[in-house]
């Protein structure tokens, strides 16, 4: 019997049972924009950037399982508009001053803005009041830039075996926290944790190493994230 397949934007692509739409697409060379998804971590479907339409239903492709004969739309004007809006929301609901951010040029949120061709958001900036926790000698959390993707939570729990991070609060008050105490220095978090590298934005950072790559040579200066055409 032949491999099971689905239809992605009119193209038949194979999948391995158990794969998500996003994984199947990636194996077939189609990069679906994503943010909270990171290979090696359990998908959590929190950011919705990976939105696609599967058999007419709007779903997050990083969590939705591929199934036989499923018809998936990804690259359509309305889904692109939705994806843009989601990324714009992430910008306006935090405080993102890219010009002075250590992560600039390496940041996946910023890179998605570039790839999607966002020049300014359609929504009002919220300018929320958020804290910076710089209590730890070697690392810091800048809540102004946190997008609540839970990559640090999942990495610390599943790869570092530590549970150094957790969420507290709900809705607009939800924020990432050092799990064992109120301050980062009171936790088991360490400068060598893989959780630090997992943060897609400039929220979880190592101290004293910022701005080491010159402008022009940073990962997303010349090449879009996902390595494909801009505007998707």
């Amino acid at each position, binding site marked *: 019997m032949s491999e099971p397949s689905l239809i992605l934007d009119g193209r038949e692509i194979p999948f391995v049972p158990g794969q998500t739409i996003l994984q199947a697409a990636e194996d077939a060379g189609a990069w679906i924009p994503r943010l909270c998804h990171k290979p090696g971590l359990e998908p959590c479907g929190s950011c919705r950037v990976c939105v696609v339409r599967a058999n007419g239903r709007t779903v997050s492709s990083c969590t939705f399982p591929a199934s036989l004969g499923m018809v998936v739309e990804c690259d359509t004007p309305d889904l692109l508009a939705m994806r843009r809006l989601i990324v714009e929301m992430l910008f306006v609901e935090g405080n993102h001053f*890219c010009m002075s951010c250590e992560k600039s040029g390496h940041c996946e949120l910023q890179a998605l803005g570039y*790839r999607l061709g966002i020049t300014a958001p359609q929504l009002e900036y919220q*300018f929320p009041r958020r804290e910076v926790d710089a209590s730890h000698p070697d690392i810091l959390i800048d809540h102004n830039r946190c997008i609540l993707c839970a990559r640090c939570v999942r990495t610390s729990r599943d790869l570092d075996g530590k549970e150094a991070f957790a969420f507290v609060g709900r809705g607009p008050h939800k924020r990432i926290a050092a799990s064992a105490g109120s301050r980062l220095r009171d936790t088991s978090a360490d400068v060598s944790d893989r959780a630090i590298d997992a943060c897609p934005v400039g929220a979880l950072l190592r101290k004293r190493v910022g701005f080491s790559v010159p402008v022009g040579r940073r990962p997303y200066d010349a090449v879009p994230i996902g390595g494909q055409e*801009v505007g998707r």
Partner: protein
Amino acid sequence: MSKPRVATTSLCGCFGCHMSLLDIDERILQLAEIVEFDKSPINDHKDFTQRCTVGLIEGGCANAENVHVLRRFREMCDVLVSVGDCATTGGIPALRNLVPLEECLEEAYVKGPSVHNPSRRIPDDPEIPLLLDKVYPAHEVVKIDYHLPGCPPSADTLWEALNALLSGKPLALPYALLKYD
């Protein structure tokens, strides 16, 4: 045919975006040939002499005067472009949006470590434009047609954009020229 007119202004910005425009180097001669500058700090014309094709806005709105100038630009320009992060997001001046205005003024005029102000009075002369509650990006005050983010946008970005706008082509920046820093 008369040359298209370009007006520029710096609202709550640092003039870095205007510097970036000068950074187009010798292309400035070409620019001077194809456009006529109207109200702009480049020629120091204080007000519009007539309607303009393109208005370039540097800086967001931090005070009542910024709002007044921005509205005047909207009135007088066919196409209005936000240039730089301050115009598109509020930029560095918008850092004050994270602190209540009263605290900001107190720090600047009363409590700051290098402040000498025995009267403890915060400047309130009617000649001084009134500060807004926060710094607003230009598009939250008037309709803006195009945005060129960057701190500042590079000379190449400005050059590409101006060329497209002045020749009536749609403005689509190549990947490497759309940057937020």
